[in-house]
């Protein structure tokens, strides 16, 4: 990867800060679908209801450096912008095979039955609504370098 990639911006989520207000889901669904149907949101917050630990986790696009979804897409509908690093889907090119839905470990892209195309986080063109409306700042826009350090700590246990 080029030097540029480390300065790209990505969204990170810190479960310790999240209050579970789900404001991010509402604003995301409203921005992209003009609806408050949370199934249409590109981000979703999960609660650990059964254990009652009060822990949260978000299903949000990591805008991976080498995206699984882009490499699995047979029609070239999913692409990664060289400059900004955003992974977006072009619904006009999408053929509805759902490779991305099944191959992404998080299943971030979902199949939008109405538009007959895959849909996923598009970074809101550089100013993500979810980040703007996250009052405890659990969702933040940071550089890829910082995001990697954070994800290493959170998910791989490396400090």
């Amino acid at each position, binding site marked *: *990867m080029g030097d540029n990639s480390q300065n790209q911006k990505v969204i990170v989520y810190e*479960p310790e800060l999240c209050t579970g207000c789900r404001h991010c889901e509402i604003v995301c669904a409203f921005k992209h679908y003009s609806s408050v149907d949370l199934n249409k949101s590109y981000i*979703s917050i*999960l*609660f*650990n209801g*059964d254990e009652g630990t009060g*822990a*949260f*986790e*978000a*299903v949000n696009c*990591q805008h*991976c*450096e*080498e995206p*699984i979804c882009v*490499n*699995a897409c*047979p*029609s070239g509908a999913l692409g990664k912008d060289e400059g900004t690093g955003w992974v977006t889907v072009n619904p006009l090119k999408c*053929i*509805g*095979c*759902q*490779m991305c*839905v*099944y*191959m992404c*470990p*998080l*299943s971030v892209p*979902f199949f939008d039955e109405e538009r*007959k195309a895959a849909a996923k986080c598009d970074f809101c063109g550089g100013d993500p609504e979810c980040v703007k409306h996250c009052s405890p700042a659990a969702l933040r826009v940071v550089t890829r370098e910082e995001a*990697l350090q954070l*994800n*290493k700590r*959170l*998910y*791989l246990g490396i400090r």
Partner: protein
Amino acid sequence: MITNDIRIFRFDASSCNGCDIEVLAILTLGLPLDELGVKIVDTPQEANTLVITGGVNIKSEPELEEIYELIEPPRRVIAIGSCAATMGIFKGSYSMIGPIDEIVPVDLYIMGCPPRPQVIAGALADALGLDIEGMESLLETPEGFRAEPVVSSIKCIGCAACMHSCPAGAIEIDNTGADRVVKFTHKDCIFCATCEEVCPSEAVELTYKDKSWFEDKEAAISEATVELKKCLLCGLPFVSSRQIDWAMKKIEEKLRIPKEAHDRLLWSSSICTDCRRKGINEVKEAKKTLASIAIRTQ
């Protein structure tokens, strides 16, 4: 069999005229219709064969019933085109009553939107017991023309891209049981070739070199069966296993993933999308997979 006494009455139930033009084009094939005893008649009373194009709408319904009654038995009804079989693109329109067989019994369906004149001639000849020389070569789909889609059971990966792209709704996916059945129904097909275009595994081909007329419209199908993969956590079938294999192969070709991340990816692709988001532990595991792939690129 009524040989050499074929009196055809043609009725346009509500066709767009595409099929009618193709029926007219039969004359250009140079078939010796007179010698074969085929006549096109002007009134239903003289006819013994009713050829219908288009679906039935509010206005044509009483007329169709009347015409059918006026033709003396034994009579034969031949429905030409997708609209006559299923209402085609007019499905759901406020004025439509239904396909032909909801009003009168149909003996033969000729599939297409519209069917080629050669196919109509061949179907009529077959149904009416005519023996036309050189019919076989006429029926072959010429280069650059399209006919019904045929799906290869070997190549199909069962991803359902064709179903989602089909503008005519001619492709059905049946997930009942342990298998997924991808069914191309010819009665609705408009030969647009979108399925051929989108198919990632090139399993669909639109050159059909067989008879495309059927006595039973439901039997006019081409289908492929693929095995469904069961979710490792909940045990329910959720996706075609060939699709996952196909995607995995594609990813392996393009990305060099370390062994551990590769194993994690294989594991996550064996879990249904509901189970992937069942709880925070599952999501943590998935994020761990993505993080371990990201580390390699450092």
